C-alpha cells in the first residue's frame, strides 16, 4: 500500500483482502521490491495447494533461484475458489502479482482490457513458438500472447470397452447418429449408457457446448458472444440434438440429483462399471478411480462425434488448461521464470510428477498413462480449440448456459428457450 491517498476502491479491496487473510495483504503492493543487495523479489501466485504439485513447484522455484542468484521467488498459494475471489478484487484495484495463475479467456481479457497484463508476444517469441499450439490458445487474445501454459486438457467421452462389447458395439461412434445408435444398443443390452451429474450443471453444459461447436462451429460461438446473440439456427439445432439424446433416457437413475465426484455421483457410476460412458475432461480417469473403483484397462477415450451437416469437425477440441500471466510492469526476472517453467526439463518433471499434460511437444515422452496418451494425441492433432464456455464468457453468461442446458436436460426448456435465455443474459451483461 504505497499509495498516500488511499482511494475508496483501494479501501474496498483492502477490506476484501483483510477478509481473505494476511497473505493476501502482502500481495497488494505487487511485490518485486529491490532489496539492498540488488536482489529482485518476484511474487508468484498459484493454486497448487495440493501434493505432489505443491512441493514440486516449490522445488522448481528453489532451482530457479539457484540458477539466478539475484532473484528471489516468493510463492503465494491460494485454494482455487479463494484465488478466483481474490483475483477479482485485485483486478478491480488494479494491482496484480508479478506472476499469477490464469485460465485465459474472458477473465484474462478483462484484466488485459484494464491494462494490467504484460503483452508477452515479443519477450517470449524466441522460445514460446515451440510450445503446443492448442495449449497457447486460451491466452491468445486479439493475436497477442498474454500467458504461457503449463497444462492443457480436453473433454471427450470416457467409455467402458467391456460394456461396449457386451452391447455389441465394435468401434467408438464417430458421428452423432452412430452415437445415438450406440446409446440405444447399450440400453437394449441393459446397460446405463451415460452418467451425468445433474446437480452440477457444468457437466450437462459440455454436451451443448460440443454440439454447438459441431453444428454452428467455433467461429459462431465467438461471434455469438461478441454480438450478444445466440439465437442462430446452429445453436437451436445443437439443443435439438441434445433433446434427441435426452429423449432416449440415457442417464443413470436419479441423475438429476447426482453430484460429480461423490461416492454415488457421475464419476463413480463409470468407475464402478454401472454406466458405460461419461463426457468429461482429462482428469476423469483419476476421479473415477477415486470416487469409485476405477475400471483399469477397460477404460477408453474417444472424441466427441461429428454432427452430420454441421460446421465443425471431429478434430476441434473443447477444453482448457492452466497458465501464467504477468503484471503489466513485471520485472525481466518474471519473464525468465516463465521461460524456465516452460522449458523441456521443467515440463518433463511436471508431466512425470504432477500428472499435467505436456505443453512442450518433446516432453510427451514423459507420459506413461495410456489414457492420457490418447488425450495428448487428440490435442496434438487438434485443428481448433474452444475454451470452457464458463471461462470464455462473462460469469453471468457462462452460468446461464449451464442453467438453461440443465433445464433442457430436465425437460422443462426447449432448444429455443435455451438460446433465448442465453441471449437475454448476454444482452443484460453488456
Amino acid at each position, binding site marked *: 500500500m504505497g499509495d498516500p491517498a488511499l482511494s475508496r476502491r483501494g479501501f474496498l479491496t483492502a477490506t476484501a483482502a483483510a477478509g481473505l487473510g494476511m497473505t493476501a495483504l502482502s500481495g497488494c503492493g505487487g511485490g518485486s521490491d529491490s532489496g539492498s543487495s540488488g536482489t529482485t523479489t518476484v511474487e508468484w501466485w498459484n493454486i497448487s495447494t495440493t501434493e505432489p504439485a505443491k512441493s514440486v513447484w516449490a522445488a522448481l522455484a528453489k532451482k530457479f533461484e539457484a540458477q539466478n542468484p539475484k532473484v528471489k521467488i516468493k510463492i503465494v498459494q491460494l485454494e482455487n475458489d479463494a484465488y478466483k475471489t481474490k483475483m477479482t478484487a485485485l483486478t478491480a484495484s488494479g494491482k496484480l502479482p508479478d506472476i499469477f495463475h490464469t485460465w485465459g479467456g474472458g477473465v484474462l481479457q478483462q484484466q488485459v482490457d484494464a491494462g494490467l497484463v504484460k503483452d508477452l508476444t515479443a519477450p517470449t517469441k524466441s522460445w514460446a513458438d515451440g510450445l503446443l499450439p492448442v495449449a497457447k490458445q486460451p491466452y491468445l487474445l486479439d493475436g497477442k500472447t498474454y500467458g504461457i501454459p503449463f497444462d492443457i486438457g480436453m473433454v471427450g467421452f470416457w467409455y467402458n470397452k467391456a460394456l461396449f462389447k457386451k452391447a455389441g458395439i465394435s468401434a467408438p461412434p464417430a458421428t452423432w447418429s452412430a452415437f445415438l445408435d450406440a446409446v440405444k444398443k447399450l440400453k437394449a443390452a441393459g446397460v446405463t449408457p451415460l452418467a451425468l451429474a*445433474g*446437480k452440477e450443471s457444468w457437466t450437462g453444459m459440455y454436451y451443448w457446448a460440443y454440439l454447438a461447436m459441431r453444428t454452428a462451429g467455433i467461429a459462431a460461438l465467438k461471434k455469438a458472444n461478441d454480438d450478444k446473440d445466440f439465437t442462430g439456427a446452429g445453436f437451436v439445432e445443437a439443443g435439438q440434438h441434445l433433446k434427441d439424446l435426452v429423449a432416449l433416457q440415457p442417464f443413470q*437413475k436419479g441423475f438429476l*440429483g447426482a453430484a460429480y465426484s461423490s461416492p454415488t455421483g457421475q464419476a463413480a457410476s463409470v468407475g464402478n462399471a454401472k454406466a458405460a460412458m461419461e463426457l468429461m475432461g482429462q482428469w476423469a480417469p483419476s476421479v473415477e478411480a477415486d470416487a469409485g473403483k476405477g475400471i483399469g484397462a477397460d477404460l477408453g477415450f474417444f472424441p466427441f462425434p461429428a454432427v452430420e451437416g454441421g460446421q465443425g469437425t471431429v478434430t476441434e477440441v473443447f477444453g482448457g488448461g492452466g497458465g501464467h500471466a504477468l503484471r503489466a510492469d513485471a520485472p525481466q526476472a518474471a519473464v525468465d521464470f516463465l521461460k524456465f517453467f516452460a522449458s523441456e526439463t521443467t515440463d518433463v518433471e511436471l508431466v512425470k510428477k504432477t500428472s499435467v499434460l505436456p505443453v512442450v511437444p518433446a516432453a510427451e515422452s514423459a507420459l506413461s498413462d495410456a489414457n492420457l496418451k490418447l488425450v495428448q494425441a487428440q490435442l496434438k492433432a487438434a485443428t481448433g480449440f474452444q475454451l470452457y464456455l464458463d471461462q470464455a464468457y462473462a460469469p453471468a453468461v457462462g452460468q446461464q448456459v449451464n442453467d438453461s442446458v440443465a*433445464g433442457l436436460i430436465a425437460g422443462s426448456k426447449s432448444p429455443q428457450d435455451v438460446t433465448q435465455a442465453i441471449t437475454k443474459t448476454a444482452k443484460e451483461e453488456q
Partner: protein
Amino acid sequence: MTSTYLPGTRPGPDAAPRPLPPAGRARTRRRLLHWLTAMGFQLPALVLFGVLVLLPILFALYASFFRWGGFGMPSDYTGADNFTRLLQDDVFLGDLWRCLLLVVLSLALQLPFALAMAVLLNQRIRGRAVYRMLFFAPYVLSEAITGVLFGMIFAPDEGLADHLLSDIGLGALGGKWFADPSTVMATLFLVMTWKYFGFHMMLYLAGLQSIPAELTEAATVDGASPWQRFRHVTLPLLAPTLRISVFLSVIGSIQLFDLVWVVTAGGPDHHSETMAVTMFQYGFKRYQVGYASAISVAMFGVSLVFALAYQRFVLRRDLAGATTNMRGDGA
C-alpha cells in the same frame, strides 16, 4: 447505598431524598446525564451493530437500485429495474411459492408432531431423558453435515433408504427422492422435520414443565378427560411457547439456505430453490450483485413484514410489559 430503594427511582449519588422539582431544568439535566451514561455503555454495541448489521442492510438497499458487478462502487443506476425483473423472474416467484409451501407444511405437520412428542416425553416413561436427547441431537448437527448425510441416504437405488425399503419388500416405495422435480420438496421437508422438530419439542417441553401440576390435578378431580385436560388446561397455558415456536419456524423457512445448498443446490431444475439460494447464485456465481441485493431486500421485506405483523397481532400479549425503557420503570 443504604437508602431505601423506591420503585421509580434508581439508587445513585443523588438517589435518596428526592429534591423537589425546581422547575424542569434539573430534571432535564438529570435525564441528560442518564442518557449520556446509557449511551456510554451502549456505544460499543451500537457501533458494532451499525457497522455489521445496519450498514450492510442499508448498502444492500442502495445497491439494489444499480446494475453492479460487486467491485468498486455501484454507478450504473437503473431505478427499480431489478425489482420489476424480480417480479417477472419465474425462479423467484417459484421461491415465494416454495417458501409458502414449507411454512404451511411446517405449521400443519412438523409443529403438531413436535408437540405430540413433547407431550409424550413429558409423561413418566422409562428412558425419557434418552429419547429427549436423541430427538434433540439432529438440531445440534450442522446443516452441512445433515445435507451430506441425507444426500447419501436418499441416493436413488444406492442409498440406505432404498436399500432398506427393498430389504423389507417395499422396494416399490423407493424413489428418486431429491433427484426428481416432483419428489424433491417432500424429501426436503422430511429432512427439515428430522432436523428441526427436536428443537420445537424442547421448547414445548420447557413450556409444559412450567405448567403447575395442581392445575391438571384439579381438572382431573373435576372429572376432565385426558383430551379435555390437554385442550382446556395444557394448550392455553402453552400458548406463549407455541406462538414463539411458530414465529421461529416461519422465519427459518423464509431464510432457509444451508441445507438446500448442500443437498440439492436448488435443483433439480430449480425445484427446491429458495430465495436465499437464488440470491447466492446471482451474487456469487454470476456476479450480478445489484440483482442479488434486490433479492436480499425482498427477503428482508418479507421477513420484516411477517415479523412486525406477527408481533403486533399475535405476540402482543406475550410482549406486554417485556419492553423496557432506560429509566427502568416500564412506562
